[in-house]
């Protein structure tokens, strides 16, 4: 396997393409500046934008924008936890279940991965709010007086007034993400050679131990890289629950943008925050992944 293009030069040397691209970039930047400053006459006001965004409330509450960031973090964390649990269950069910179970898990994966997340969220939100909440008795839980929530509960789950809001968001994104994780898990399990199962069986290692000591550790090494990608997707996908009024970063951003009129600055800022979040998460997860799979030289 050799590439026909791309014999990389190791020395730093600019060629003709570099020149063309640089001229193009400068031209594009110039054009953008011209359009924004003269064409649409937008008056950038970063100081104003930053002070609006980070302004504390009258009674010294956390700035609205920051509550949005925290909410996105909580949403992502609990979403990832629930999605992982569901995803592993569905993935194992798809791989090792009986005929019926396999079929149900397969259908779940197939449908959730093939309809737009937005459509799923709208359907599911209506379903949750009209059915699931009353059914699980969650509405009773959430209508408790707010004073009962302890400090750590507030830290983990945010202000009690928004718990129901948070649960809707978590359920929505974890149900979607679970389908993708399940597929990753199934593929990881399917990639383990049959001989590994047979060796475990012929040695008389009990079934659950076979999973625990022989199969899962190996599957994990294969699953880890795509799983990392799924967690980052989950953080990104969490932005669409703003459309069912879950008060996370995107929702908060759009409130602030609309009320302040500083559309350009606020949206760029929101994008920047997501960028930082996802980038640091991917760096962090890559470290974890590397540490976890240190012993798997043969798969590296």
């Amino acid at each position: 396997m050799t590439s026909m293009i791309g014999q990389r030069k190791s020395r730093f040397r600019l060629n003709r393409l570099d020149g063309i691209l640089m001229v193009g970039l400068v031209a594009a930047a110039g054009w953008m500046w011209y359009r924004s400053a003269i064409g649409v006459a937008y008056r950038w006001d970063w100081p104003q934008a930053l002070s609006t965004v980070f302004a504390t409330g009258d009674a010294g509450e956390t700035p609205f924008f920051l509550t949005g960031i925290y909410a996105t973090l909580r949403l992502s964390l609990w979403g990832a936890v629930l999605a992982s649990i569901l995803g592993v269950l569905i993935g194992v069910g798809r791989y090792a279940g009986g005929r019926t179970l396999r079929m149900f898990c397969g259908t779940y994966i197939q449908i959730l991965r093939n309809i737009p997340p937005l459509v799923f969220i709208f359907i599911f939100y209506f379903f949750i709010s009209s059915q699931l909440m009353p059914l699980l008795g969650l509405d009773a839980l959430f209508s408790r007086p707010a004073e009962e929530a302890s400090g750590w509960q507030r830290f983990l789950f945010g202000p009690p007034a928004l718990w129901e809001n948070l649960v809707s968001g978590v359920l929505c994104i974890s149900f979607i993400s679970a389908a993708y994780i399940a597929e990753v898990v199934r593929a990881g399990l399917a990639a383990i050679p049959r001989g590994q199962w047979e060796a475990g069986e012929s040695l008389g290692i009990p079934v659950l131990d076979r999973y625990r000591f022989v199969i899962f550790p190996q599957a994990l090494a294969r699953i880890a890289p795509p799983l990392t990608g799924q967690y980052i997707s989950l953080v990104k996908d969490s932005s669409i629950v703003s459309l069912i009024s879950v008060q996370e970063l995107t929702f908060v951003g759009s409130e602030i943008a609309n009320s302040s009129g500083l559309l350009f600055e606020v949206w760029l800022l929101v994008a920047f925050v997501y960028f930082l979040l996802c980038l640091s998460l991917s760096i962090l997860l890559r470290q974890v992944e590397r540490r976890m799979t240190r012993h798997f030289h043969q798969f590296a």
Partner: protein
Amino acid sequence: MIGLFRRPWVRRALSNWIQPAAIAGILVFAVMRGAENINYRWQWYRVDDFLFTSENGAWAAGPLVQGLFVTLEISVLSLILTLVIGLATALLRLSSSVVGRGLARGYLELIRNTPLLIQLYVMYFVLGPILGWGQTTTAIACLAAFQGAYTSEIFRAGLRTIPRGQVEAGDSLGLTRLDNYRYVILPQVLRNMLPPLTNEAVSLVKNSSIVSVIAIFDLTTQGRNLIADTFLTFEIWLTVAAIYLAVTLALSTAAAMAERRRAGA
């Protein structure tokens, strides 16, 4: 008759289509029963009007079908743009140009680390006004910019796996560089990439529903508007989901078949 069910394509159709459809049907039924418990009145009979209307014996597309056409139109246009962006990015990444590689890298990181919805908002509220783009242009550009980042990986993989022997064989036969690309290299690259590219099309159709937030009258928007008018929430959402599912599953099946054919060849 029994033999029919042994045929590979029948079994494939069964597992790809009929089975999920049957189970989805069961789930919908469960939801319906559940909804009846909260006094939801089902009015499925009203849904066909939203698909097709007939006036004086002439059939016309209802709002949902119109929406589907808009969805397909946007998907097709952004698919074309996606291919251009994806190929350009892949070539830049494989090029010897420092600026080009940096540019491609930056673009990829930017797209991969921000949500599609935020990209859409930034394009719609910031870039669109600056460049004087309308909604449709913004939507297409946004979807293509997003998908292009992922498609470029496919192109990159495709371009990297051309065996040098093929290039040399073409050269040694005295083909011009252009003819070599046109008749020897590209056909091979394209054949390898067709299945994954079909999956990109599936992604595009799926992701296109997000442009409903900037008031484009696609399938999702039409659904939302109809619900606002009629309050037939479940009926309409389930119909919309079924339409999306039909389109994406049809494309996935095509991709799987192309893949199998390539593997078999």
